[in-house]
Structure formats: C-alpha cells, structure tokens
C-alpha cells in the first residue's frame, strides 16, 4: 500500500515557547485506520491539524501522496482545491466547525466551495442527511442542536466533500452512548469503503472496538511507539508511562479500593 500521508521529523510549538510536537516521524498508508492516542496536552490535535495542513510544522515536513505540502504550495488554487477535497478534518469542538445558518447550508458549504453546481450539491446534501440520519434537522439553525446532533452534522459536512482521508479529533468526546454507537458503526463502514481514517483520542474503549494501528504520543510530545492494537493495548507499562491508565479508587460491592484500572482491557487485582 502506498503512503497517503507522511510526516518527517515534524516539530511544532505554540508561540515558540509551548512545545506541542517533537521530532515526529509517521507514515499512514491508503485505506488504513490509525488511532493517535495520548494523554491531554500530548499534541494529538496539533498532529491532526498539521496532517490537514491547517497549521504548518516549524521544522520537518508533511507529504501528501509523496508530494511535500507547504504554505506556498497551498496558495495554488488548483492544488488547494484538490488537497481540501481529499483531506477532511473533523474538529473536537463542533461549535467552531458549524458556522453556516442551517444544517442544510452547513453540509452544502464544502461542495459549493469546491465548485459543484446547486443541483449536484442538493443531491449530495440529501445523501449525507440520510447517511447521518438527520433529515429532520435540515432546516434547523446549527446553534440550536444538541451535542450529538452537532457532531453528526460536523461529520456530515466533511463527508459531503467525499474526502479520501478523514481526520477525527476526539470524535466521541461528550456524546451519549447512542451517538457513540452510531459513530462507531459509521467509522467501521467508512473504513470498509477504503477511506483512510486517523482518530485522535484518549478513549481506549473506542480504540479497543476499532482495533486500528496505534501511534502513542508521550507527555513530552514525542512518538513513543506505533504498533497493532493488541500489542499496544496489552503493553501495560507503556500505557502507564504515557499516562493513559492509572491507579484510582473504585467500588467492588461494599469494598472501595485502589489499583491499576482500565475499565475494559484488564482489571488487575494482583497489587
């Protein structure tokens, strides 16, 4: 499989003083599903924003299908249109992503910017509304939606551009179980239709469900390890080191005690 995205020695810091990423080397192949996991502040969102060329690395390079992506390259209208239609980025906070008047407009925004005519856009919006089960929301203003509805619209608005690479930043954060279940199924369907999917998350349950290849970011913003899901999720020492599992109190019947605890992978009572 050819690499669709490649990062070479990428580093980034905010305001030149707050480090976010340090010397990241990572390649993602066509059709692959990759989960970027790490604790809060490890640089997952920054990594995804660099992959979508919304921000540019201070050192190192981003390659899309073998071609280096730079600010200058993205100023070329033709290249920009191709890149933006191929790489879809779904923000953690749906509020920032929903800037159009209504749900219909939101989903139509991407196709219209890409130059699709009104009738083709309408057909695409109709398909997406059906796919996301949100036909009944079409005329609703986007600031009058619930958290789950906003997330569905945000994902729909990106899918309307039919990207081959989807970057999802904490897709399940703050959602109810029904929406989580819907989105998990959707991610499976998208993966089966050969989309390349990158998910930034610290939700190990989601990662366990999807069983993707995993890239682990450490708290010092480095790429700690990459590997298959069973290998990474089974590496307890690694998960403790990157602060993804920890010791905390919980209840067993009437007994409250503390030990290393991951609610789905293992429940270690040896300590």
């Amino acid at each position, binding site marked *: 499989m050819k690499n669709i995205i490649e990062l070479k020695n990428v580093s980034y810091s905010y305001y030149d003083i707050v480090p976010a990423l340090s010397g990241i080397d990572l390649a993602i192949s066509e059709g692959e599903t990759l989960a970027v996991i790490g604790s809060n502040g490890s640089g997952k969102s920054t990594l995804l*924003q660099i992959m*979508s060329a*919304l*921000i540019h690395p201070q050192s190192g390079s981003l390659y899309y299908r073998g071609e280096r992506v730079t600010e200058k390259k993205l100023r070329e*209208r033709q290249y*920009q*249109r191709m890149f*933006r*239609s191929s*790489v*879809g*980025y779904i*923000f953690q*906070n749906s*509020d*920032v*992503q929903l*800037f*159009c*008047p*209504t749900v*219909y*407009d939101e989903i*139509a*925004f*991407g196709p*219209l*910017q*890409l130059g699709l005519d*009104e009738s083709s*856009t309408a057909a695409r919006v109709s398909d997406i509304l059906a796919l996301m089960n949100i036909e009944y929301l079409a005329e609703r*203003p*986007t*600031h*009058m939606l619930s958290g789950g509805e906003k997330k569905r619209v945000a994902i729909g*608005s*990106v899918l309307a*551009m039919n990207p081959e690479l989807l970057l999802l930043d904490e897709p399940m954060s703050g959602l109810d179980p029904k929406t989580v279940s819907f989105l998990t199924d959707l991610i499976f369907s998208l993966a089966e239709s050969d989309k390349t999917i990158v998910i930034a998350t610290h939700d190990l349950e989601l990662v366990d469900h999807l069983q993707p290849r995993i890239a682990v970011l450490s708290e010092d913003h480095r790429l700690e390890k990459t590997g298959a899901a069973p290998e990474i999720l089974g590496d307890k020492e690694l998960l403790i080191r990157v602060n993804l599992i920890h010791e905390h109190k919980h209840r067993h019947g009437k007994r409250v005690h503390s030990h290393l605890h991951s609610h789905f992978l293992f429940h270690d009572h040896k300590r």
Partner: protein
Amino acid sequence: MTFIDTSITKIAEIVKTNYVQWETARKNGLFQKLDPRLKAVFMLGCVAVISVKKELPAELAISGFIFILILLSRLNLIRIYKRILFFGFFFGFLIALPSALNVITQGDIIFRVAALSRPYHFWIYTIPAEIGITREGCYGVGILSLRVVNSVSVVLLILNTTHFFELVRSFKILRIPDTFLMIIILTYKYVFILSKTIEDIYLAMKSRLVGSIRNSEIREIVSGRIFYVFKLSRMRYEETYKAMLARGFTGEISLNAGRGFAGRDIVAGIALAGVLIIIIIL
C-alpha cells in the same frame, strides 16, 4: 452586582426570543410559506409606500392591510402589537408630539395650552401669544406615528415569519456579495454562542462569591471576565477560520441560494404588489 444580574438576564431573554422567533417562523401561516426573497422585496416596497404616502386614510389602509397579513400568518397578536405600539409610541408619537403645537405647525388651534401677553420673535422663530395644539399639527403627528407603526409592523411581520439567516440570504437578490452576508450570519450566530458563554461564566462566578464584596473588586472581576471573553472569542474566530479553510474556503464564499420561486410565491407576489399599487393610487 444587580446591574450585572440585569444585563445577563436581558441577554438570556434575547437568546430566548431568538428561539421563539425560530418557532413562529416555522408556523403554518401565509407569510411563513413564502420565499424569503419575495418577503424582503415586499418589505422594502412596503416601507417605500409608507414613506411616500402623506394621507391619513392611506396610512390607515396600510395598517389594516398589515394587520390582515399578521392574522393570516398566525402570529401572536398581543405579543407583536405590544412591540409595535411600544416603538410607535416612543419613536413616533412622543417624538412628533411637539410638532402638534402651533409653535412648530401653523394652523387652526383646536386645544389651547397657554396664553402669553404678546408674541415673541427670536431670530427666524416666532412664539405666538396664544399657544395651542393645531388641527394640522395633529394630522402631522398622526401621519408620523402611523408611519412608524406601519414600518415596525411590516418589519416585525417579516422577522417573525422568516428565520433571520433566510432573510439575510434573501438579500442575495439585491446583489449583496455572499462574503458580506456570511459576515452578518457569523456575527449573529456568535453573539448567541458567546452570550451563552458569558451567562455560564457569570453563574460560575456568582456561585463562588460569598458575603459582600467591594465595588473595586467587582470592577476587577468584571474587567477580567471581559478580557477573558475577548480572548475566547479571538480563539473561537481562529478555530472557525481553520474549519472554513478545511472545507475549501479560499477567501470567496459561495452561499446556497435556497429553493427557487414556487407558483404560490408568484401568485402572492402579484397580489401583494397589487395591494401596494392600489394604496399608492388612493
């Protein structure tokens, strides 16, 4: 902190009003079914006719016509006319009232207010010996008040039967650039999102304030929060800009034009235009 309480409550009320407006715009009434572009053109045409007509019967006819449209649009008459009369009273009647006096409008006095020993002349002005309300002045006040009432009525009719965003988008028909319309839409939208944030921040702050605090401390807290909200809105703007870039924004925006004119829009357009022409002829 009462003034903060009041301001926050008012902001929350405005947000609530927005929800009410969205609900009324979804009702199954006459104007709700019409194309927003037709309504925008009707609004501009109606305001033009209101401004042009100088006869009381014509203004009364317009009032009656808008009243029928409000009825057919199934709007809450008490709620809408409370607003109309409020604006009509303060921005029409009260402002125009002094012009009813013969000091401003010459004419037949129908009600004597005061009598002076002699008339006074000052530069180009004259204060007559007998001051009173004139018939012509009353007519002028009536016309001006009705103009305000009618203009407010037609604007509220459109606002309550059309969602704000649809109305803004309908201005595409006047060849206003999409980018400018998008700026209005974004501004309107983020006022609501930020007002919710402000309300939450204030409640969080209030829950932690115990006992009486000095005014200087209140000022410090409020100014700190204002700065925080400013920073927050700046961060939100940067993120939204990135979201727009990610979806193909290149500096020029293409907005969805909405559905085309239906048969009922054409019939309604002809009928509304017909009534306005009859009023002009009156």
